[in-house]
């Protein structure tokens, strides 16, 4: 059904998806780029953000969703950031950020977080009210106003992160460490502390994206798998250590996924999208963006 409104819907959904994906992937991109490690527990940080959002909005305050949401936006990154710092200090530092050991360690972390949530929050998927809800009627279909807000918020947060990286001293340290950690250390950059901050920042960004999508997807203990997979793909397709590439890849994959879904049956669409990503990487192994500079 390739009508104009179908294409518009695809673009809309794709853009919202791309914005959220960019925010989710940015954290992973930072961690990957600066620390050169794969954090398999990244999706669990997203899930934690969603669970905290549920807890604030539906359980704790139950008053007005907007209040709960605002509280979650503040609280979730703090909680998740703290967990990340603990994980870095207790585990990652001790395996010396060795890539393979980090894989095993973060896989362990994934189980710990996931099962911890299962035992406390439970196995069911729970909904929460969006903080602001209105329905926008376009010709041919209705759309969630909240999703549009999410896209806007995601872009805002991305902008804030960019400012942080470009304009602050910590941001400078991060960029230096990403480019050349040994030289940075020689110049007095406290690399170990930067690693901890980067890991925490990556987790916080993930948690924020979790808070944003919770009113759309609900909160469920297994929901971290999808963001993990997608973030990975985006980070690598964008080009390792390349933040602009990550954003580009998020746009490409988000909107591309939306468009392909309009044209084909769901499973076939997913097969095509999957093979397309593989094709991109076979042809351009370094990812979409060429350079290593930000």
């Amino acid at each position: 059904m390739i009508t104009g409104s179908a294409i518009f819907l695809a673009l809309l959904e794709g853009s919202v998806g791309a914005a959220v994906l960019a925010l989710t992937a940015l954290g992973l991109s930072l961690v990957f780029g600066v620390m050169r490690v794969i954090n398999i527990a990244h999706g669990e940080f997203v899930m934690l953000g969603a669970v905290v959002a549920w807890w604030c909005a539906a359980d704790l305050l139950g008053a007005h969703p907007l209040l709960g949401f605002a509280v979650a936006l503040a609280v979730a990154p703090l909680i998740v950031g703290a967990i990340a710092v603990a994980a870095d200090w207790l585990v990652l530092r001790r395996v010396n950020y060795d890539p393979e050991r980090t894989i095993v360690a973060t896989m362990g972390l994934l189980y710990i977080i996931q099962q911890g949530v299962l035992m406390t929050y439970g196995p069911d998927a729970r909904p929460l009210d969006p903080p602001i809800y209105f329905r926008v009627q376009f010709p041919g279909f209705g759309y969630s106003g909240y999703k549009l807000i999410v896209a806007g918020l995601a872009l805002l947060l991305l902008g804030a992160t960019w400012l942080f990286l470009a304009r602050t001293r910590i941001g400078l340290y991060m960029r230096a460490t990403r480019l050349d950690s040994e030289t940075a250390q020689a110049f007095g950059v406290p690399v170990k502390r930067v690693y901890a901050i980067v890991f925490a920042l990556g987790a916080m960004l993930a948690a924020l994206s979790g808070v944003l999508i919770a009113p759309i997807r609900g909160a469920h203990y297994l929901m971290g798998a999808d963001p993990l997979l997608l973030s990975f793909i985006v980070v690598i397709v964008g080009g390792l250590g390349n933040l602009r590439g990550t954003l580009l890849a998020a746009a490409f994959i988000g909107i591309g996924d939306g468009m392909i879904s309009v044209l084909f049956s769901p499973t076939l669409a997913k097969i095509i999208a999957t093979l397309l990503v593989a094709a991109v990487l076979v042809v351009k192994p370094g990812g979409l963006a060429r350079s290593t500079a930000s």
Partner: protein
Amino acid sequence: MRVRSSHTPRGLSRRQILAAAGAVSGLQLAKPFIITARAAEDTLKIGLEAHRTGIGAVYGLWYERTSSAAVKVINAMGGIGGRQVELIVEDDATDAKRGTEVIEKFANEHKVDFVFGPLFGNVVGAVAARAGELKLPLFVVSEGSELADGAFNRYVFQTGITNVRSQVTAISPWVIKNVGKKVTMIIPDYIFGYNHRDFFTETAKAQGGTVNAVIAIPPTETSFTKYFSQIPADTDAIYHVMVGPGVLTFVRELGEFFGDKGPKLFGFIDSLEAVDIGAPGLEFLEGSHVWEAFPRYLSGLNTDNAKFYRSAVGIDENGASVDNPKEVCTNSHMFGCWETLFSIKEAVEASGYKGPADKQKLVEAIESTTGYDEGKGHPQGKKQFIGKAHQVFAPQFISKVEGGKLNVVHTASIEESLYEPKADYTKLPL
């Protein structure tokens, strides 16, 4: 891959920890050798293979609760054949590989007499095969139609819950007449979904309706809006049956897409099991209809036996846990565990089954059953059982969403749900 420095933590030395770990695992391996001091009670051991974790976790939770409640009631009644029932629960993580490992554990370590409980199709297929090899009677609580088609073996039964084909057969005339003639189906890309697609398409045609589009969504999908533009503009009705944690998002996004306009909806409660109908974002379901196997609300089936069942399991009149009104149960599936356990009781007592040597007598007893009466053991209603296909048939319910609750508006009889199953397991050797 290179290790820069290896850092031995202080405290216990690595060697001590390894020794301790070795001791623990050795103990674990030695368990079957160690003769337990427990006196060998004459219990009947029944294994529940539950989806305690994984995508089926919410079903596993309620399957376990319902089964424990049923066992308690049965034991209070004097047990099965005079023996108390011991329920052993294992988690299969809703995974086929783990499921077969668990079946082996049930057979070889726990040495149970029977196993019941798998629900999700991917697990059912795998464990059915293994159960047949192990000659372990397996009672699935699943709804798959393959059993009655002869896809499994003579050790697999479904005595507690009906299959999709009979459900669809029962309700499609009502759907075509009352909801719409041109139907778009939204199903999961699972065998479960294809069952719906195939049988509904067939029965709808017989009623003068058509299925004008089928949108099969892969299980890994978490957002659905982008697929809705594939719904043809002239669709009268949307038939939806989604499973898994994504159903919440699915139902909400459907509402956002259509608003007040749009086709009428008919869904299977599978899309809404364990979901509170009054939850935020589900308002647009108001006025639509839903198939149920066992009405979630007491008002839908207000019999003494249903009340007894509900209070034993611990659900209130709204189908939520009495301890937590926000915890909605999976009533249209979990009753299958209750009824399965009682059907096992009836089969054991009818055949005089005392142990694994009597398996043949048990299987033949089940195969010669023609049905079950409505009662404490079968609160959902009277049942008909087609022995040679190992499958039970039951009444089906259609409810309307009104005021955030479900009210039963139509009951389809067993006869309306009957079809001629292909299987004849009685011809197979044991």
